[in-house]
């Protein structure tokens, strides 16, 4: 059930600090969009507004509209908790629940929704772990704690946990930055697979990764320190990397690329 995302004139604040200014962009269903840009320009901040995680920070505030298939997730009638159920998130640092077993980690979201049928849970658990390319490695030890896995495995466990609730959109904030190259490749392959069913937004500092996995790339930048971050340019990944419109994009990409 992939859905499309539209941001209209989004401004994001941390208390008095205006972190990101006037973002307009659209993400098509069943596509991968990557956010790139220098550190501190607000990529994570924008990503976290997409599932209303931003408002968990005291004083944080969002203006503008974030539409999921035309419906504003910040609409007064909608609940942050319900939004997050529909828009899953994977974090930079793998964060399985340390005291829960692998199985319980995967089905944690379903259990929250009141699914307690053991058979159903087992089915979803297996399907999600397969979907996250982790089934073969852990099928024999589902009852072991999730904290006992390697970093790459933990990250895939977190992806399995996120897709177990069948979200409409999957957000990933630098999902590979704590991983070795082999695990990174595994996750990138996984993203390519997941694209068939989910709308994916990924933040990355790795240009090759953005080029490899995404259909569309958004470049964010800071005009100066202390000023809010801005969306400079968004376009097809091939265009951004070969023939960007903005000089700043070109500078950033050529400065780091290769």
């Amino acid at each position, binding site marked *: 059930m992939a859905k499309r995302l539209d941001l209209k004139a989004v401004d994001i604040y941390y208390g008095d600090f205006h972190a990101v200014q006037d973002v307009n962009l659209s993400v098509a269903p069943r596509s991968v969009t990557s956010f790139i840009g220098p550190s501190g320009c607000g990529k994570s901040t924008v990503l976290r507004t997409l599932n209303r995680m931003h408002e968990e920070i005291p004083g944080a505030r969002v203006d503008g509209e974030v539409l999921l298939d035309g419906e504003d997730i910040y609409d007064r009638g909608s*609940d942050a908790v*319900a939004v997050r*159920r529909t828009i899953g998130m994977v974090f930079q640092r793998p964060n399985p629940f340390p005291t829960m077993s692998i199985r319980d980690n995967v089905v944690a979201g379903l259990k929250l929704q009141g699914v307690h049928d053991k058979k159903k849970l087992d089915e979803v658990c297996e399907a999600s772990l397969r979907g996250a390319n982790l089934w073969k490695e852990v099928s024999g030890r589902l009852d072991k704690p999730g904290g006992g896995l390697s970093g790459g495995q933990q990250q895939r466990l977190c992806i399995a946990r996120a897709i177990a609730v069948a979200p409409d959109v999957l957000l990933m904030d630098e999902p590979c930055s704590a991983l070795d190259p082999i695990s990174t490749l595994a996750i990138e392959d996984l993203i390519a697979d997941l694209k068939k069913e989910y709308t994916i937004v990924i933040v990355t500092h790795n240009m090759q990764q953005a080029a490899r996995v995404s259909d569309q790339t958004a470049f964010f930048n800071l005009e100066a320190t202390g000023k809010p971050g801005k969306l400079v340019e968004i376009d097809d990944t091939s265009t951004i990397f070969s023939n960007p419109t903005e000089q700043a994009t070109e500078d950033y990409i050529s400065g780091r690329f290769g």
Partner: protein
Amino acid sequence: MATDTGLERPDRPAAAPAFQPLSTGRKLKDNLATVLVCLAFLVAVVPLVWVVVTVVGRGIGAIVSADWWGRSLSGVLPESFAGGVYHAIYGTLIQALIAGVIAVPIGILAAVYLVEYGRGRLAKTTSFMVDILAGVPSIVAALFIFAAFISILGAQQSAFMVSLALVLLMLPVVIRNTEEMLRLVPDELREASYALGIPKWKTILRIVLPTALSGTVTGIMLALARVMGETAPVLVLVGYSQSINFDPFSGNMASLPLLMFSELSNPEPAGQFRIWGAALTLILIIMILQLGASVVSRFSAISK
């Protein structure tokens, strides 16, 4: 922010809502938890307010007279509302003061040991024993002083014996507070001093301890506040006196808790009058120390 309900609005499209609202059961549980948790806090505030109101209400009548602060109960009859408690205030202060004079240097040095020098088994044991000492009941500390100094060494009951017991109760508080402050002193400061060729012990004395000073003073004041209200040691280690005794090393000496306890056996209304008056006096003294402690901690050189 996140507390909006998931109820559908009438102007929504007829299609299924994009976000399934939370099930009623989950929402109910969440709200119930919120209510219970707030209630728990209120439940704790009630006794505090209640105690303070009781003590102020019943004690205010006693402490407003000048005699209360300037006279003792020497020669005052049990049923008389005359006299004052300055002998007990003196006792409370001097006993805590002597305890502080002994406990503070030992406590600070022990904390320096734990933070700056401690390695290996002795340090581990010390740290463990500080926790144990913090849990030793005051009556046990008093019994120990009684057993060691009075039964075995043959000393007489006196205010000084009380102070010795209070030392045991103060030590862990002083050590833990100082330790915490020393750990907050940034390492760069130590290294900067070493780089100037200043030996470690001088670095600690001249740089580390002064930086941690305000926190340490706060800890000392809190420790003093804690021991001033202790009743068990005075019951075991010193006799009550209705009149002033300036000598902490011999004779009976009153203190506010001891005076309150003795007046419990006074059936006259004046007994109650003195008890609550002394209670309010004690709370005032402790409050001054507490306030002093939080003022001093404002001047901390290290931002937490």
